[in-house]
């Protein structure tokens, strides 16, 4: 029987082959302390890894046999708005029921709240797998990770009230965007006022583009400080649908991810609770929320790339022209090889990012219970920087790759790909949003550029360079080293220009150069451990990356000369 986890060996490889994994599990399981209290808790590292494998096997099974077969119908039917409420496409309920029966909720939450206590890396794999089946459904399901922010910043009473509900399958949304506050969230105007009489906060106003906006539990960004106009006047609130007061005015008609309802919301004196401290809504909590969501979109993008690859290969092997399968024509084979190369490189970046996030989050969590020692504090600092630096790379690059891969997938299908009967057209439409929401690629560049200019990426690359590779890849390594040198030279030249405007203009190019180098090194590590899986895509990817780096090098040189 098809299984979207077992059938894709590269995912399992990513989970099992990092030296960081043992540390991640040890931290996440706090030295395997739960084993005497929770029957499902692991006894040791090997036991935990075995459990993760089994969890993902279930995800792969449900996605292959429920979610993916439903995707076409969900896409065609879409959700509807009725009397201020969202009614999902009928098969979406079937998907949700399967996920709930399987207990795939509260994936990363501690066991004491009913969660599965899985590392982010494992949750990321689940995300990727769900997205391969149906990226629109992945949106609804993966919004469960908003609970991470409530767990980190809510008080104990709020944790006990909300986390178990999410672990049982209640859905979430993050209500941030407004008509005049998209990328610029500082302009959020939804009003939060304190109701002295009832001793609670109230929300009034509207929000737009809210994914899964009729969810059970909302995290809402609102202006609690009357008279302010910037980010420091914003706080984060929890709205519980059971209290009522928020209606769905309409659902957007979108190009893709039809399964996921994108809502316009009206808040009519809606009762809510403050989450964390006042005024930290945007500057602290939304930033944390967004980082989690960006990793989620990176996973969604990789899932879409995998789907594009599957469809392209299946069609090209089946379709015959001029007396042979079209995959045998070099022009078609090259497109497929490029999809695979970008897929494998992007996936390597995704999981490396997830592992960095895991270590930093687990240490941060421990620091809420006890004081960290000096070594742990240094580790926390290092990994939180790595996570911050890698998240915008993983999100931006993978979402752009998903678009490119979906484009090539249609191209492989030729005229049939343009017709609405093949899955590739849905993948193409679904992929389009990934480079826009949770921060456009342009904003990922803004988040990443400081790590270009302060030399942090350069340091990471230097560390990667020191890792041994298989002798047959030494030639490729030399070429990647030359790419890194070009990146360093371009960075120096841009810095020398000493102009913020010039830096903003060049940022995207430097961003892509460094991402190309980092992905080349990560894929090289994979290929060293498992040449049968990655040697081909490594050489294909380095060739692509080299050409990209050269393109940016040329663009930057001529731009800086002007």
């Amino acid at each position, binding site marked *: 029987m098809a299984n979207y986890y077992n059938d894709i060996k590269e995912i399992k490889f990513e989970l099992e082959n990092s030296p960081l994994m043992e540390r991640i599990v040890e931290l996440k399981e706090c030295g395997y302390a739960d084993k005497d209290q929770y029957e*499902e808790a692991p*006894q040791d590292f090997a036991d935990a890894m075995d*459990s993760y494998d089994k969890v993902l096997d*279930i995800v792969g*099974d449900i996605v292959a046999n429920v979610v993916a077969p439903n995707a076409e119908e969900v896409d065609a039917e879409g959700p509807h708005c009725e009397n201020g409420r969202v009614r999902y496409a009928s098969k979406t309920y079937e998907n949700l029921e*399967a996920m709930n029966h399987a207990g795939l909720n509260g994936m990363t939450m501690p066991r004491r709240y009913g969660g599965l206590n899985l590392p982010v890396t494992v949750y990321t794999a689940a995300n990727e797998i769900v997205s391969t089946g149906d990226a629109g459904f992945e949106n609804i399901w993966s919004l469960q990770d908003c609970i991470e922010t409530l767990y980190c910043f809510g008080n104990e009473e709020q944790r006990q009230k909300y986390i178990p509900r999410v672990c049982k399958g209640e859905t979430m949304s993050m209500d941030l965007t407004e008509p005049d506050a998209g990328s610029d969230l500082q302009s959020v105007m939804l009003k939060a006022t304190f109701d002295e009489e009832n001793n609670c906060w109230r929300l009034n106003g509207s929000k737009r583009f809210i994914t899964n906006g009729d969810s059970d539990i909302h995290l809402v960004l609102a202006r609690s400080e009357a008279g302010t106009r910037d980010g420091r006047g914003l706080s984060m609130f929890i709205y519980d649908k059971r209290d009522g007061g928020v209606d769905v005015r309409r659902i957007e008609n979108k190009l893709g991810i039809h399964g996921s309802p994108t809502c316009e919301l009206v808040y009519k004196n809606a009762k809510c609770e403050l989450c964390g401290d006042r005024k930290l809504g945007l500057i602290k909590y939304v930033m944390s929320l967004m980082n989690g969501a960006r990793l989620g979109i990176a996973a969604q993008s990789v899932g879409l790339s995998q789907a594009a690859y599957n469809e392209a290969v299946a069609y090209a092997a089946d379709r015959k022209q001029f007396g042979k399968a079209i995959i045998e024509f070099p022009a078609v084979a090259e497109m497929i090889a490029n999809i695979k190369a970008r897929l494998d490189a992007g996936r390597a970046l995704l999981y490396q990012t997830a592992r960095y996030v895991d270590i930093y989050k687990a240490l941060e969590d421990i620091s809420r219970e006890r004081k960290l020692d000096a070594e742990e504090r240094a580790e926390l600092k290092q990994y939180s920087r790595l996570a911050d630096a890698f998240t915008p790379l993983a999100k931006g690059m993978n979402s752009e790759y998903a678009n490119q891969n979906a484009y090539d997938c249609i191209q492989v299908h030729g005229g049939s790909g343009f017709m609405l009967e093949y899955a590739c057209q849905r993948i193409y439409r679904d992929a389009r949003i990934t480079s826009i929401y949770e921060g456009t690629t342009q904003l990922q560049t803004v988040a990443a550029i400081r790590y270009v200019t302060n030399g942090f990426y350069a340091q990471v690359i230097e560390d990667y360079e020191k890792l041994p590779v298989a002798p047959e890849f030494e030639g490729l390594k030399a070429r990647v080293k030359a790419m890194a040198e070009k990146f360093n030279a371009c960075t120096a030249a841009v810095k020398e220009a000493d102009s913020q405007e010039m830096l903003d203009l060049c940022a995207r190019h430097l961003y892509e150069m460094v991402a190309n180098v980092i992905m080349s090194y990560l894929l090289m590590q994979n290929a060293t451990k498992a040449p049968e899986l990655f040697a081909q895509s490594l050489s294909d990817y380095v060739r692509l990356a080299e050409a990209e780096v050269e393109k940016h090098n040329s663009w930057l040189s001529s731009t800086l000369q002007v």
Partner: protein
Amino acid sequence: MSLKIVVLAKQVPDTRNVGPDAMTPEGTVNRSALPAIFNPEDLNALEQALRLKDQFPGTTVNVITMGPGRAAEVIREAMFRGADGGYLLTDRAFAGADTLATSYALATAIQHACPDVDLIIGGRQAIDGDTAQVGPQVAEKLGLNQITYTEEILSLEDGKITVKRHIDGGVETVESSLPCVLTVNGSAAPCRPRNVKRVMKFKRCLAPMELPQGTDYANLPYASEYEKKPYLKIGQLTCADINADLQQCGLAGSPTKVKNVENIVFKAKESKVLTGSDEDINALVQELLASHTIG
């Protein structure tokens, strides 16, 4: 109200994806070429049991399966999906059983292990034998009512169960007193997926027959877990455990004898080309009338 439910399940070779090596030259099933799976309609049966468990807290669902050690996989799988536990009915004396000997063994095991059972639920039939006899025979041997082709349990109250059953050209709603036996049709609700917490909790469950020859639970990895958590040891019943009459078990208790196995090759008959003329059409109508295909 809580119920005691027994689900009858069988591990079968997956005959739905048969390759060229599915049969041995001797005409028997080549088990190594076909993956062993949970008989599909037994999964439909399990779902019906689990729905009752959802509805009536305190209900226990136990799976009984007859087979070699590896058949315990069916019990684990059922536990992953929500069953409380089960029994592997295993003994050399059971080998070679036809449906009569199988239902004798199952009925005897139920009398022994779950004498106060309220409901016995099984799939309509197994995909390897396709007889649909075992469920009804178990009911006969236990002297219980039986409802076959179950599609949905509509209600269960005051010791009565109301069931919608699938019949030719429609459905029939029937009622029975408890205890009784249901066999469930493949058109009933599909079984829920495995639950991740249950998988993590029960993944080490093993029946004694599954242990490597000459070893004990104490020799296994994580041995102390088996001491602390008795549910990790899957119940096992032998012929002697259930005081079964050896003459009615296995080959000895099986009146069915396979006389011969033949390969059937479907061949297309010669085709006939008709024109659109009235003559040809009339001739065809006459021919179809004569062969009673139409009319």
